[in-house]
């Protein structure tokens, strides 16, 4: 099984429906990687409130994990749950694109 560098979980009591599972692939501590992590947290806090779970995978430390999710560009954000699978590439600085990509309704509305 994969060992990830950091997992953040919010709403520990809810583990099933409605919980977003996001995986962010980065390569080392580059500017883009750090920006992506920061942006992702910001967006999730604002729009997903408590119902998300982020995994950050550093490909420099675990290169063999890139093939599994077909990672080509870095940083890449993969939305595993809810289905379908979505991928967003970039440092996530364009919030609107991230919301469209993740299919998140604007804050306030439930999924």
């Amino acid at each position, binding site marked *: 099984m994969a060992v990830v560098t950091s997992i953040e979980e919010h709403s520990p009591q809810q583990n099933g429906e409605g919980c977003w599972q996001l995986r962010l*692939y980065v*390569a080392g501590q580059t500017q*883009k990687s750090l*920006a*992506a992590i920061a*942006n992702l947290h910001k967006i999730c806090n604002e729009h997903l409130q408590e119902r998300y779970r982020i995994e950050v995978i550093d*490909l*420099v430390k675990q*290169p*063999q994990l*890139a*093939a599994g999710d*077909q*990672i*080509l*560009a*870095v*940083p*890449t954000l993969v939305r595993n749950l809810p289905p379908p*699978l*979505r*991928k*967003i*590439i*970039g*440092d*996530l*600085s*364009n*919030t609107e*694109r*991230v919301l*469209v*990509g993740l299919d998140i309704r604007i804050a306030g509305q439930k999924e």
Partner: protein
Amino acid sequence: MSATEAAPRTAELEKCPTGIQGLDEITGGGLPRGRPTLVCGDAGSGKTVLAMQFLVQGIRQFHEPGVFIAFEESAHDLATNMASMGVDLNQLCAENKLAIDWIHVDASEIEEAGEYDLEGLFIRIHCALERVHAQRIALDSIEALFTSLKDQGMLRSELRRLFSWMKEQQLTAIITGERGEGRFTRHGLEEYVADCVISLDHQLSNQISTRHMQVIKYRGSAHGANQYPFLIGKTGLSVFPITSVGLDCPAPSEQISSGVPRLDAMLRGGGFYRGGTILVSGAAGSGKTSLAAHFVRAACERGERALYFAFEESRQQIIRNMLSIGVDLAPWIERNLLHFNASRPSLCGLETHLAGILAAVEEFAPRVIVIDPMTDFIAVGSLGEVKCMLTRLVDFIKMKQITAFFTSLTLADHSLEQSEAGISSLIDCWLLVRNLEQNGERTRALYLLKSRGMAHSSQVREFLLTDTGVDLVDVCVSAGEVLTGSARSCGWSGGGGTWKRRSKICADNSKW
């Protein structure tokens, strides 16, 4: 197949042999070591096969592991496709000699939100290289990225970074790309991969398709710059360069029997030179196949293997027909000394035929072969192409010192000495069989038009097909007229009671 012309000089670029038949000859030793080579061509021209074979031969022949980065076909599809060429990719991967990574970018799944780079691609390639300690790599076809990723500027700079990184790693790489309009590739990969460019194409002519390969560019090395035909067959890709080595083959002086004793007598008493080429031409029904059958029977009687390529009649038909003149070929087939290969020339292109003949010769290892008739090839290609193909065939068999017997059909209204396909220059010994119509009957006459390297009889002989085989009979000459058939046997010469003399069959004209 054959050696290159000059010995490599130390100043020349180091080459990485591909192990692909013919390709190492045209490139003078292989691809540039440690540099990328661009292989461009349309869909279906054989780029993936070339790239994969480069890696597989590297593993099998030169013990260099390789990595195949596929952008279009999945690993499973590749394995299935290559299995038809006798390559087990799964086995090679299991042995850790080959690593295949399928990089798939589905544009519909991806949203671009901010800046990114292709470090993921680098990481995956590096991972695969480390896994098998690869020295060779193939990228097929990296242009797929251009259609899926929108940031072309970033893509181009990342590609530049990738290729210079590969050069640093001293990897010999094959990069494939689709042919573009007015350029080598659609997205201009030749900007980054400029050391060696090979182009593949697939042309259709006379309803038959032929594949051609051309080394358009090879920095720092001499190379064959022509288009060379190639085939993708059961053993993969093979290129057929015209080698000049064919003119440097030994010339044996041993003579072998033609199967007809009196014909041997006309050929300085011994028969054809071993390793020579013989042509029998004549109109329909003149007895060419019969002569061929005698020739192979004589070879089999000597314990030598004979391979008969029939392009007009089936094996069973030839056996039946030859039985009617007392030549029984069946026992030789049973003893595995004689083998028939029958097919229609229009079935496939000249290159495929040539490849088939060469492969059959390699497999069966005959000392003599028969091509009956070779004129049917003109239906498939132009005269020039047929001559080209026959030249390569003759080069090949001369190197192996195999004696070849060709038959050629001349059309009724053509002069018998018109050289078919300009091939007479390739022929060492040329026999002509002519149908004669005289005094209400048709008979056959044979004479030697040429026989290189030996004195031979230049007299016409009557050629008979009897129940016990072919026979050559002395003709009678009377009042300057050659008498054959019944006119000969009764000595009649039309005028009533004129002097006749027999011309004896002998090796030269000096004695009667």
